[in-house]
């Protein structure tokens, strides 16, 4: 069956196609080179529409233990946003911590077709995969959290060579069926288990006496040498602490030439100027990002309203638990791998700090010049629920709209941001880059994020409207692998997605070594820690992302 999407204005920046009226032809779930007219074709009229590839969110906490803890704490949010189930959906609801079905439906209703869970803790990976398998209409993948795991820290501390580290990282990626490595507060989560309360980039942690810099560099080298496409996905030191802009700049300079992705950088761009000792470091950060082509970032924009924050960074979450709203929170030390902290938050535009956080995020979006190195995220649900993306897109594309909202926020925060002086408005091309092409490229997904021949036929038709929020909230048509799943913003079909993983090879000696580690230290068999291919997506198995040579 062949489908022809015709008459739309195509934005496919990965293939250099910007605002060209042309046909997109689909066959067997993939886009093909236009064979010209003839044969039996289903025609989809895209006139009046912008045609984009399916959206890709490379950092959104959608599955796993901490999300479930978030659901447990957010029963009120769940009740406020019910999701009636009919023939398409399972059921569920919620906004800050939606159910699996609601997650898939809400994402695909906005034109997203792939979302990556950026914090899979090894011990909880099986759970995360079971949840991901239950999310309809979107493809998924997980980033494995390393950098606080005792086995790794022991290897580094004992002076084992890089090869051993590489073998371990490769083993863990395969064992947990993950597609990238995330580091959360390198060494910091581990330090907290030893009662360390802070750990700066060049500070030696307790017990192993390793600096975050050393842990970071070791893992950067590992993923580079293994050929994992996505660079280290770093949630840096000192999240949320005023003055952390210094740490963040130092971290960017500490990469020894390896590429680095800094995630939710908004939370790491705080200065200490002004009488409240809290200021925007966005300009310095943006300047540094602009000057360093090996750095990419996602923003982690905060959006006002109720949400829940879920992070492996228990050190930071413990620091923040007193400002939980509602006043409850859960922390966990997890299985020699990492930790988690789940803290409900209500960001208020009447709060100086929250208002400035909001402005800092937008400053970053607007001051970082290369859209290929900045990805659109709210760090769902930490900065705000992903359902706020259309609003965020309009804030970026519509200066008067942005200024209107700027006038609503806390007065003092307004005088602490240069947002009003920034005239930049994102173009449709840039939106296509930050929500599609760029995340696909950094994740090594060659058949995604674009509309060229061979690409997965994830195609979205947005009716061109001046109100970009409405436009991006209600696509006219969303196709997942060539199948129409959304029409006029409503779900019309449920499909099963796939899960991405990388499987770099590792020395069999590492198997033996980890068998002993799991037996003796962890108290679990390594064979039961490892997730078999057949356990992914109900037997479908993972989709393997090619390694970079």
């Amino acid at each position, binding site marked *: 069956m062949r489908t022809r999407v015709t008459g739309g204005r195509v934005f496919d920046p990965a293939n250099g196609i910007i605002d060209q009226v042309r046909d997109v032809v689909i066959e067997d779930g993939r886009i093909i080179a236009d064979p010209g007219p003839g044969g039996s074709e289903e025609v989809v009229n895209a006139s009046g529409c912008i045609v984009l590839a399916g959206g890709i969110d490379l950092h959104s906490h959608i599955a796993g233990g901490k999300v479930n803890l978030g659901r*447990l*704490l957010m*029963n*009120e949010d769940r009740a406020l946003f019910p999701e009636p189930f009919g023939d398409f959906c399972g059921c569920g609801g919620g906004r800050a911590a939606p159910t699996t079905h609601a997650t898939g439906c809400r994402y695909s209703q906005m034109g997203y077709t792939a979302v990556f869970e950026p914090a899979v803790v090894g011990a909880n990976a099986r759970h995360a995969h079971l949840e991901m398998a239950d999310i309809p209409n979107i493809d998924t993948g997980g980033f494995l959290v390393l950098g606080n795991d005792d086995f790794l820290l022991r290897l580094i501390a004992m002076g084992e060579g890089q090869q051993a580290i590489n073998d371990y990282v490769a083993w863990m990626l395969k064992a947990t069926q993950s597609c990238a490595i995330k580091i959360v507060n390198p060494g910091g989560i581990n330090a907290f288990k030893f009662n360390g309360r802070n750990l700066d980039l060049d500070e030696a942690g307790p017990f192993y006496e390793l600096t975050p810099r050393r842990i970071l560099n070791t893992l950067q080298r590992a993923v580079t040498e293994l050929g994992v496409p996505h660079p280290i996905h770093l949630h840096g030191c000192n999240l949320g602490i005023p003055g952390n802009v210094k740490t963040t700049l130092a971290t960017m300079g500490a990469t020894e030439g390896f590429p680095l992705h800094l995630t939710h950088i908004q939370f790491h761009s705080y200065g200490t100027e002004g009488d409240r000792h809290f200021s925007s470091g966005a300009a310095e950060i943006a300047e540094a990002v602009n000057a360093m082509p090996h750095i990419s970032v996602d923003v982690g924009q905060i959006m006002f309203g109720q949400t829940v924050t879920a992070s492996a960074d228990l050190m930071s979450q413990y620091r923040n638990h007193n400002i939980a709203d*509602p*006043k*409850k929170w859960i922390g966990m030390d997890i299985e020699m791998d990492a930790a988690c902290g789940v803290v409900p938050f209500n960001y208020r535009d009447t709060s100086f700090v929250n208002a400035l956080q909001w402005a800092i995020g937008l400053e970053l979006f607007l001051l970082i010049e290369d859209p290929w190195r900045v990805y659109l995220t709210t760090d769902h649900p930490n900065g705000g629920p992903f359902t706020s993306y259309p609003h965020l897109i309009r804030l970026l594309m519509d200066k008067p709209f942005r200024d209107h909202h700027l006038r609503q926020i806390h007065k003092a925060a307004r005088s602490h941001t240069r947002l009003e002086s920034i005239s930049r408005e994102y173009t449709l091309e840039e939106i296509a880059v930050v929500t599609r092409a760029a995340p696909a490229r950094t994740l090594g997904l060659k058949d995604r994020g674009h509309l060229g021949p061979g690409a997965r036929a994830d195609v979205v038709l947005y009716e061109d409207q001046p109100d970009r929020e409405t436009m991006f909230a209600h696509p006219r048509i969303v196709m997942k692998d060539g199948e129409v799943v959304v029409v006029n913003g409503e779900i019309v079909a449920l499909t099963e997605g796939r899960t991405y993983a990388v499987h770099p090879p590792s020395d069999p000696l590492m198997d033996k070594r980890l068998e002993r580690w799991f037996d003796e230290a962890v108290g679990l068999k390594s064979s039961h820690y490892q997730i078999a291919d057949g356990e992914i997506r109900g037997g479908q198995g993972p989709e393997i992302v090619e390694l970079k040579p």
Partner: protein
Amino acid sequence: MSGFRLTLKAPLSARVDASSLLPEALAGVSAADVAALTVPFGTGVALVGDLFEITAGSDEAVVFSGDPRLDYVGSGLAAGEIRVEGSVGVAAGAGMSGGRLVISRDAGDGLAAGLTGGRIEVFGSAGKNVGGPRPGERQGMRGGVVSIAGRVGDGLGARLRGGLILVGGDAGAGAADGLLAGTLAVAGRLGPGAGRGMKRGSILVTTAPEALATGFAEAGPQDFVALKLLARRVPELAALFGGTLSGRAVRLVGNRLAGGEGEILVLS
């Protein structure tokens, strides 16, 4: 008159969630419109008109004939009045913020859970967890007045944060668990284990509780000006206790295990 009278056609064979049938929601619609609404019935749905005979009311209120399976009556009520001629199921008046709910006979579990305002009057008895928190919520009832003429079940006023609950009869076990603030007034006997984790707030009783939760101490008798004041300011309390609310009471303080300074005042 824009109110309605909803008379059950037969005793309910499954539980009904009546939370959508609020005076504000039904204002300005016709009886036929009401009949065409659906309500959760068991794990399915039913047309309101299939369960109830709907007629115009004599005033603005929504009036139900009751049934022990009629749940969530008045849940979320913010204004207006609901009257039930008969009994109701669970969670009547849960999360109510204003208005008035009157139940002529008994209420099930979870009456007034999470109440923040308004008045609830029950002329029969009520089940467990009156005025407690709704599932997952940190705190119980935070405001409003609930009066129950008869007895109540276990867990009265758990995590109560404010407001007044008046009980004409006995209260079951474990009242005032984790009570934070607010007032319980029980004219009958207070069941065993009351006041566990109680932080603040008051329980007014007329007979010394048989077995309080561990952690209370007796401060002795006192002539409380505050009780004289409440007797005049809060007519419901005066009506419940009559002459025993003279000001004289024995004060028990606790729960000291939780560092609490709540009180149980035994009126005399």
